[in-house]
């Protein structure tokens, strides 16, 4: 499992404001990239631009050497993206939410993932009754259930308690060790991980 994502000379503008210009970096297997910058610097926008739903003014993006600037499908099939709003349907139960995103996961794997994120007692609870942190942990449980090579985690630590942060850090570590790559934005200090930092400055 090897992966190499190259971002070349990205130029992103939003609402007439330049977020980055000539930004280049690469992510390969076993690498953790942290996108840093002040609030509103465009960290989330950079991830959305990489995933292809914010247009870029200029730039090139390659996955394993292949130019995917105009068609990101190759990248999309091989990644998990978790944004600020994690896409958890409030009317469905925890189990049904995870089944929607990971239809091929076995019942055993599902229970194990819920245990990892400390939600094993909430299997049948409607997501509407969960707290913000619990909802985020439902979304994070997907990381245990699918094998994707690149993770894009936008502020994954928000609303998580200490136990959740430790579990997520450990999971990121194991993803890196198994040859995956992780792109993360966060303001919190990382205790056990040493990321490569990409600074967003206007």
């Amino acid at each position, binding site marked *: 499992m090897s992966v190499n994502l190259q971002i070349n000379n990205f130029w992103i503008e939003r609402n007439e404001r330049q977020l980055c210009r000539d930004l280049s970096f690469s992510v390969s297997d076993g690498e953790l990239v942290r996108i840093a910058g002040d609030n509103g610097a465009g960290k989330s926008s950079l991830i959305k631009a990489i*995933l292809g*739903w914010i247009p870029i003014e200029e730039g090139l993006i390659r996955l394993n050497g292949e130019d995917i600037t105009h068609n990101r499908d190759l990248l999309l099939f091989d990644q998990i993206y978790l944004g600020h709003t994690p896409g958890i349907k409030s009317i469905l139960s925890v189990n049904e939410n995870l089944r929607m*995103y990971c239809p091929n996961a076995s019942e055993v794997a599902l229970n194990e993932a819920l245990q990892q994120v400390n939600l094993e007692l909430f299997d049948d609870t409607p997501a509407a009754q969960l707290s913000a942190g619990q909802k985020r942990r439902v979304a994070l449980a997907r990381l245990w259930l699918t094998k994707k090579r690149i993770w894009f985690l936008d502020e994954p630590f928000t609303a998580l308690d200490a136990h959740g942060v430790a579990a997520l850090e450990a999971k990121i570590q194991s993803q890196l060790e198994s040859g995956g790559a992780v792109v993360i934005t966060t303001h919190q200090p990382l205790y056990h991980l040493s990321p490569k930092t990409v600074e967003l400055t206007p």
Partner: protein
Amino acid sequence: MNYRSFLKSEWLTLVRRKQDTINALLFFVMVILLFPLGVDPSKAFLEPASGGIVWCAVALSILMAVESMYKEDFNDGSLEQWLTSGLSLPYLVFLKVFVQWLVVIVPLLLVLPLLANMLFFPIEQLMVMISTLLLGTPALFFIGAIGSALTVSLRRGAVLMLLLILPLYIPVIIFATGAIRAAQSGMSYSGQLAILAAISLTALVLSPLMAALSIKASMN
């Protein structure tokens, strides 16, 4: 996520949210009830007008149903997950509209015989009315899906959406009521039904593509 699990979760969501379906149904019944009560309860008025009354009520309750169809997906971040799932966005839109259509239209068709009878609509021509509904309502849903996608990121997009899509509803309503009137006066109505089917098929092909484009643009 794959297409099957997506379809299943959409179905579950709609089935759990019974009040939306019931609202659309109640609205449909109320609008139809207003005509005999508010205008004229006589057979001379209701019988020729029944096709138009039923179709106006159907169009209005469909508008209610499609108006906010992606609102929650937008708010809870599901739309972002659709975009990054690697699945075809037009196909996801198609599946969503199809499930919505099924959940809204089947109850309407079930109460239709009763209401048609109340409007003095000849029972032997009920099949014509049901055919116009089956052939015409998919167009209303698919057109509505575009408007709903265009206004998904707006806070008060409902009125704008009505202005956008109501003009596009007019041809469907004209041909549907035309078919019913032709049937009532003993003329051939297959032409109107064919046009209704054509409009629905065109909407079925174009709308998911356009709704997908609109969703992408709204997510910017």
